[in-house]
């Protein structure tokens, strides 16, 4: 499956670059996802805190904010 994903990315690389999120960011996402799925042990308390901070960082980004709500 990994090879199929890479093949798709390579094939559509030129069009992916145009106007959408940069390819390096997408590849970073794929790499991070694969790393997450390799986890075999439960988080330690320190790792729990790391995730909490990560979640707060991600959900504070502008694109998480709705523009459809009244008054915005």
């Amino acid at each position, binding site marked *: *499956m990994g090879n199929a*994903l890479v093949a*798709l*990315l390579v094939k*559509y690389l030129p*069009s*992916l670059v*145009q*106007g*959408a*999120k940069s390819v390096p*960011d*997408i590849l970073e*996402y*794929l790499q*991070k*996802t*694969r790393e*997450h*799925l390799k*986890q*075999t*042990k*439960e*988080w330690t308390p320190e790792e*729990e805190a790391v*995730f909490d901070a*990560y*979640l707060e960082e*991600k*959900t504070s*980004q*502008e*694109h*998480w*904010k*709705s523009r*459809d709500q009244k008054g915005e």
Partner: protein
Amino acid sequence: MKKVTISFLLLCSVLLTGCETASVAYKATTTGYNLSSSGETGVVNDDAIVVNTEKILYVATDTFDLFLELERDNEASLKQISPQIHVYAEKVRAKGKQWIISARTAKDAYKYNRTAKNHANLVTAYKTLNSAIEESKKYIDSAKQNQ
């Protein structure tokens, strides 16, 4: 504009395929949730669901984040393809963080107190979060069919 939209749809399909791995892995390893009994009444030992939930917490965070950023960057063109993409993106904006927090809370409750009730709550929270990831992919797929 059409090329960007097609690129976005293809990209999201490729990206969200990776998220299927989390749910597939869960199903493959937790038939019956790998239960083991400690002999105590009401105690359910299922290590796999704790680990799998922790995996999917990161996968969901990253998937929602990238999906929302891509949707925001291509909002106008995607609305022309399917207004439902934006509708669902707004739903993720409104509820996505809470889905993740709910799964995390349920995971911690079960992780530190392995009762049958906490196990059932975690399974429900896991499935809710996993469904959100799967539904994202469904909306992307339906938009592709309407091109």
